[in-house]
């Protein structure tokens, strides 16, 4: 994601927000893809269903970009699965995401505040109240 972040304006394509979610989950605990998909869909912050192809595609991209790394983990009796974990570069990337999300949250709060004022003005107008 680094190449898509302008550090001054912090504009990030919203479809890549799944990367922030995956980075956070991997920061909490190293996981393989199967488990990550389950954890992601169970997370309260997830909007809509995260499909298998999207999750694996983003994991491969982040692995290639050095935000996470992976190795094969072979269970005692179960199957071998690729285990993903966060790298120091991934931790930095997650912090940038948090900065971006905080900015977006502030903007949304300003929008809601402006709407609230607009709604109040409509109410006053309908009820004959005129304020300077």
């Amino acid at each position: 994601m680094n190449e898509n972040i302008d550090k001054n304006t912090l504009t990030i394509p919203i479809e890549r927000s799944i990367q922030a979610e995956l980075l956070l989950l991997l920061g909490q605990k190293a996981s393989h893809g199967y488990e990550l998909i389950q954890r992601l869909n169970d997370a309260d912050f997830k909007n809509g269903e995260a499909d298998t192809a999207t999750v694996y595609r983003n994991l491969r991209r982040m692995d290639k970009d050095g935000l996470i790394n992976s190795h094969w983990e072979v269970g005692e009796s179960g199957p071998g699965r690729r285990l993903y974990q966060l790298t120091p570069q991934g931790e930095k990337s997650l912090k940038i995401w948090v900065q971006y999300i905080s900015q977006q949250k502030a903007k949304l709060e300003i929008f809601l505040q402006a709407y609230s004022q607009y709604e109040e003005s409509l109410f006053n107008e309908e009820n004959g109240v005129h304020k300077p």
Partner: protein
Amino acid sequence: MSSLSKTLRIIHAGALQQVIRKCVKHFSSHNANLTFEATGVGSREGAKRLLSGENYDIIALADQALFAELLVPDLVKSYYIFAADQIVIGYSQLSKGSEEINQGNWFETLLDPQVTFARSDHHLDPCGYRTLMVWQLSESFYSRPGLYSKMESACIPYSLYPKSLDLASALVNGKVDYAFLYSSEAEQLGLPYITLPSKVNLSNPAHANFYDQAAVSVESKVPGKNIIIHGKPIEFAIGISKESQNLELAQSFVELLTGPDGNSILEECGLIPC
């Protein structure tokens, strides 16, 4: 690497035919004088061939659960999950009702007496028992009691098509209107297909508990006895036979398939590398 006059024997899911061909081509370019014998079968049949004493170096199956059920630990020590997929309904431009069929009405189209559809043999091929699971889950998902039985009755006898790749050929040759396949097979053959909701297409681990409600009886490794298997997200896996005389080469081949080059090949073939 010493590979003079050696033959690597691979038994694989029919659905992996293109993947294995591409991997063999890639692997051969780095291993001169190595020959391959690749056999595509229904994965359940493939695992049973090992049980019956046939020798292969590498086993690549469409259902990772087959390793635990039939092969580990006696014939295979460890195995690796390398790809995911989903069940879809493939068709052709000539299929009856193809103008109207969609994700919400597919069962109505397929149950039209003028329409033919098929699935593979559930005793031999995971795509066969996964199709039965899709029908069971659809009964609940679409609130259509009795749908499973109706689909079973209307379907072309499963024994005609041992593995899902045979179904794909039947579609291409116009022998059936619709067939339940892996998405990757439809992609590889350029066939149009209907995707199903993720709660029934066995693609998403998020729905593992829901999939588990589906259960199918298949022939076990004990002749004459059946076992019940439950629905799971679709995962392909690969392992090396403990009897392999080419362990180093087999390991290199598995590393190719599970590494970056293998991932590219899997994506080209419409599978999701894991």
